[in-house]
């Protein structure tokens, strides 16, 4: 079985606690439990994380939330 590499982008380097939370949650969708996290720092995200999992992008960043709010305000 190949080990999956999951890229995680965060505005600050991940702490051990954050890494554990991410691992714990990812293990619910990666049933084999064989995966490694590739970390990347992007301060423009402000807060939260962006996870590149398989062919999906799980965007939980504050930057994107703000962007959505902005779009909603401008749409009205």
């Amino acid at each position, binding site marked *: 079985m190949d080990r999956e590499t999951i890229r995680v982008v*965060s*505005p*600050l380097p991940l*702490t051990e*606690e*954050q890494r554990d*939370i*991410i691992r714990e*949650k*990812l293990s*619910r*969708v990666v049933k084999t439990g064989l995966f490694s996290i590739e970390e990347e720092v992007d*301060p423009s995200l*402000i*807060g*939260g*994380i962006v*996870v590149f*999992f398989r062919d*999906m992008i*799980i965007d*939980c960043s*504050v*930057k994107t939330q*703000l962007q959505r709010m*902005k779009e909603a*305000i*401008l749409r009205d």
Partner: protein
Amino acid sequence: MIRVDRSIVLQVVNFVALVFLLFRFLFKPVVKALDRRSQLIKGELQKIAEEKETLEKMKQSLLEEKKNLKEEYVRTIDQARLEAAKIKEEIVREAFEEGEKIRKEYEKRAKKEVEKLFSTMKEEMVNVAEEVIKKFLQSQITPEIQTQIIANMFEEAMKQLEAVMEVGHGQRND
């Protein structure tokens, strides 16, 4: 006693002959000439009377024509005035309509410009607010808050992902 001699008889005969000759050769032609002259004058007078009548008729006709022309002139002037009033009214109406059209067009444009301006202002305000919020959040987000965000937002995303994966798995099993 009256003596009738030959000379008296000759004088009488001579006189009678003279009267006869005068009557025969002078009186009749003169009377005829006078008659002709009288007839001619009568004819001339008749002609003059006829011409006078004709002239009178012509005068009446001309007077009638003048009257008709005057009436026609008055009618034409009235008609022209009416037409002018109508044209004036039409011009005023068209000008008013054109003015209204231009006014509406400008109102529409002004409204669009105001909307555009508001939209631009709104966008600029939102951009400024976004920048301010970003800066504020960047200064406020500590590792603890970041942990909280990850725990909450990533949990939500994972729940959704699990639901999607379960649906996909169920469909494959079916």
